[in-house]
């Protein structure tokens, strides 16, 4: 019905495309055949009301969920992410909406969890704490307004600092795709500006981004392409230059059909 994709500009080349993605949790059909196209080097925005299924789609792309149906093509090749590690191996880094930080661990431990640096061999290989701390400090850069020491536990950080840690982690490890699920949701003006700078820097480095946001100004300012989700489906796609905040609102609410 309303699922016909908007004609994609033929001149840009597609890095990731997901089609017909379905995912249910018990009786809840979170995704009912959603699709998404991300072009190389572009910022794609994904918008939609709460509960539309944006985060579920993100979790499918980052290997946390395995879709019930549909397929994901990366660089034209079909991929299946059995675990978050697999998605990472394909160069996909994600800032989850819940940030995916372990509060009892320190900032540097959160940067490296699941991909620790070690020294020594075999059973005597141990964490290279010094190196990981130094690299975390680098990754954190000047992202946070109040840079937390990398040795402090995440539990002690403010909301903005936590968000900065999660974003810096994804940005620092990124090679090809960075997904950010509402990265500026709880941030102040100054912090939001810094995150937007990170997004621009990543884009300038050639990283392909997926940005989920409720802030239409931000979406229109930063993105090249906008996909709109409603009740588990992708209902419209627009080039950012061809749309307006009003139109996006109409598409999200369903006042306007694709």
């Amino acid at each position: 019905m309303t699922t016909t994709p908007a004609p994609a500009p033929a001149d840009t080349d597609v890095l990731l495309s997901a089609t017909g993605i379905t995912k249910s949790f018990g009786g809840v059909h979170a995704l009912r055949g959603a699709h998404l196209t991300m072009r190389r080097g572009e910022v794609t925005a994904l918008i939609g009301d709460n509960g539309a299924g944006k985060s579920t789609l993100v979790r499918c792309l980052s290997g946390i969920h395995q879709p019930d149906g549909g397929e994901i093509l990366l660089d034209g090749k079909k991929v299946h992410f059995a675990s978050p590690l697999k998605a990472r191996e394909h160069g996909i880094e994600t800032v989850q909406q819940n940030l995916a930080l372990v509060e009892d661990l320190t900032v540097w431990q959160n940067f490296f969890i699941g991909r620790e640096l070690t020294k020594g061999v075999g059973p005597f290989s141990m964490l290279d704490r010094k190196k990981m701390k130094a690299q975390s400090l680098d990754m954190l850069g000047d992202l946070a307004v109040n840079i937390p020491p990398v040795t402090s536990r995440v539990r002690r950080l403010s909301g903005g600092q936590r968000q900065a840690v999660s974003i810096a982690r994804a940005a620092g490890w990124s090679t090809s795709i960075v997904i950010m699920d509402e990265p500026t949701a709880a941030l102040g003006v100054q912090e939001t500006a810094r995150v937007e700078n990170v997004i621009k820097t990543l884009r300038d480095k050639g990283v392909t981004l997926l940005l989920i946001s409720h802030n239409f100004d931000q979406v229109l300012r930063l993105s090249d392409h906008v996909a709109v989700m409603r009740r588990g489906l992708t209902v419209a796609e627009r080039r950012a230059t061809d749309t307006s905040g009003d139109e996006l609102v109409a598409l999200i609410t369903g006042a306007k059909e694709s």
Partner: protein
Amino acid sequence: MNTPKENPVSTTAAAPSGAPSKKDAPSSGSRLTEHLGDFKRLSFWAENAAPIGLLLLVIVFSFLSPIFFTTGNISAILMASSILVVLAIGQSFVITTGGIDLSIAATMTLGAVVFGLSWDAGHNFWLAVLLGIGASTLMGAASGFLISKGKVTDFIATLGTMGVATGLALILSNGRPITIRSDELLSLTTGKVWIVGLPFVIAATVAVLAWFVMFRTPFGMHIQAVGGSEEAAVANGVKAGRIRLAVYVISGALAGLAAILLIARVGAAEPAVNQAYLLNSIAAVVLGGVALAGGRAKIAGPVLGAILLMALTNGLTLMGVSQFYQPLAVGLVVVLAALLTRFQSR
């Protein structure tokens, strides 16, 4: 309302007190004052309940009994605490993931019986040790599989394996103790390094290894991560199921080692129910400042907690307090420690 699974960043989280504006660690001077300030905070006492409690106990009992603070008695306390130290370390690994191993003492008993039977059957001492520890490790693996693959809660799964291990020990041994006379066991009980008996040397070695594994390896970091937030750990590529399985295997193996120390101590493999060891292993971990909710690992704390419990029992015995009062004293100390943990800074 549509996204119950996702908790947006808490906006109420306080900024870290006195967050340094400079990038790295504060200078050593400010660090010193920071530590002096620590003493004034209740959380300092809560987090260090075991060493402080132990120190207090030693001081008090030294005044009350002239024998308490003698090399002979200290050596006896350490000797007596070695079994509990090993168990408490196993329990600490499990509790760090937010689980609990109720089968730890029963698994030790099973290990002791399997060792006894193997020895009785004429096997070489070391083979018997291997079989005993192997049986306990398998028991731990059974709990681990129930929890990681079967998705049974830790409490119920280990309640089940506790029954199975106790039953197996009784069935295999026909309910009778197996007396063990072996030169190796004799040298284990009498051997000493300076004033420290071999069993405690073994326990201390286990403690050092456990500390290394927990705090210096990726595996240890993953244990803490799974206990802290399984969801976040998994999102970062940690295989939570494997970690849960592994901590129960470790707990089982250490229960097997404790079984050998137990046999060395009593001179026999008894199918008796050793429930005091279960409660004391949990008590030692709580005294050691480990939250049962998981996520925060400690090794030195539980080790000191175990020694504290043994020093308490020892001191009370020296003062001629009836054995009947000892569980009461242990219980009160644990309740006190549990109350104190409420003041731990997280």
